[in-house]
């Protein structure tokens, strides 16, 4: 609820980047306050373990969750609301993807003239899945999240082990949580590479990248939320003629026939891809924000583990965070194929 208040009031205050007045500023702080208070309560609950030797984990008493830890139930409720958030993003994506003609289809239809932008859907997968190099950051990220899901499980397992030395437990839990933290950082770093930075290729690989020395970022490719004049060499008849090994215009397409009879001059197709880029960035960005939130939690937990803060009696905190982290992985299981590969 706090996040919703914060986001809505922030959006109302800065509409399309322009300051709309001070009216909603207090609400921004109310949102932040609710989030901070919730985190404080959670942290206090986490700290209450073993401070004076006592263990205090309140249990639910009402149906249908009798005798289940309240924090565990709360975490599942939270995850269900998160599921609805991502479902909204997915259904938005499906609706637009199915409703707006694909840029490739529009290009082959010949219903465009160079210089005038046409609205079409350009899936990010067209750029990302275009070569092994382009797909590398996303693929590595997929493996990173799966490994991190496993390391958090291992952290919980060692935190709960009663038959090992306390120091061994401390080191194992710290290492596994630290590894999870590191993999989360890797994930966001590669996301930055993919979105904004791109990366250079060693010389011997240039020939496999059309002679280019770098893999461009989505930003450099012009795949932006305000791209109303997007161009790609796959939608350029001159480029296609020069590089028949990469692209071709199907002989049964309308564009091919029109170019043959001279009714279409060919050239570059300009595309308005704002909707496709927005659905991509909002969905993957929301997921990235969850990873960022996980990094904050993991930083605290790793430091706590390093000080020997986790014992078999209070390992549940790792379990509850683990649920969140697995959920982030679960969402990626769907985001990766549908937004990156397809």
């Amino acid at each position, binding site marked *: 609820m706090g996040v919703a208040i914060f986001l809505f009031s922030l959006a109302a205050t800065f509409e*399309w980047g322009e300051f709309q007045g001070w009216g909603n500023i207090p609400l921004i702080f109310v949102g932040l306050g609710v989030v901070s208070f919730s985190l404080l309560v959670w942290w206090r609950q986490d700290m209450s373990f073993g401070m004076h030797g006592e263990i205090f984990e309140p249990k639910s008493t009402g149906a249908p*969750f009798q005798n289940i830890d309240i924090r565990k139930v709360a975490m599942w*409720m939270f995850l*269900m609301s998160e599921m609805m958030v991502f479902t909204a993003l997915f259904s938005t994506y*499906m609706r637009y993807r199915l409703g707006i003609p694909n840029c490739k289809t529009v290009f082959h239809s010949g219903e465009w003239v160079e210089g005038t932008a046409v609205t079409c859907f350009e899936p990010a997968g067209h750029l990302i899945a275009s070569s092994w190099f382009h797909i590398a950051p996303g693929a590595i990220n997929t493996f990173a999240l799966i490994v991190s899901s496993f390391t958090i499980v*291992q952290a919980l397992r060692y935190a709960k082990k009663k038959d090992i030395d306390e120091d061994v437990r401390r080191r194992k839990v710290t290492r596994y949580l630290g590894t999870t933290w590191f993999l989360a950082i890797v994930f966001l770093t590669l996301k930055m590479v993919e979105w904004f930075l791109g990366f250079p290729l060693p010389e011997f690989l240039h020939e496999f990248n059309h002679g280019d020395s770098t893999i461009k970022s989505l930003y450099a490719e012009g795949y932006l939320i305000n791209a*109303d004049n997007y161009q790609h060499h796959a939608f350029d008849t001159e480029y296609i003629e020069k590089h028949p090994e990469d692209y071709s215009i199907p002989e049964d397409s309308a564009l091919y026939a029109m170019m043959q009879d001279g009714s279409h001059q060919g050239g570059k197709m300009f595309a*308005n891809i704002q909707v496709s880029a927005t659905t991509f960035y909002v969905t993957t960005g929301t997921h990235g924000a969850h990873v960022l939130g996980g990094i904050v939690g993991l930083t605290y937990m790793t430091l706590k583990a390093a000080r020997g803060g986790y014992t078999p009696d209070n390992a549940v905190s790792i379990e509850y965070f683990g649920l969140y982290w*697995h959920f982030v992985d679960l969402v990626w299981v769907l985001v990766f194929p549908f937004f990156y*590969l397809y």
Partner: protein
Amino acid sequence: MAEKTVLGMDLYWLNFYGLMILTLIEVLAVGANLDPVAESLGTEEKVITLWILTIIAIPKFIMIAAIFMHLYGDEDSGILTMTALFPAFFILIMVLFVGLTHPDAASSLPDWCRPGTYGL
């Protein structure tokens, strides 16, 4: 969280290996040339890829939820699985009725929801 084994192997390691293999297949499916398969089935390569990705995503989803998130095998797994499935009805409505079935989709959306009218 009791220590669980399947065929003498640790369940969590087994799950981890399974997820890694499925992900590898996923990435390979995108890189592989599936044109001959698509042609033999009378469809596009992308459709084949989408089917492969969807089919692989389902067991991955279940493996993470059931094993890593303990929705299988724990004392409270039953009620928590029911809790996790509770939004499924709403998700079905959102995905099927909003995402898929609208015939005109973006072309019949109000102006403020269409490209070119965002004030960007």
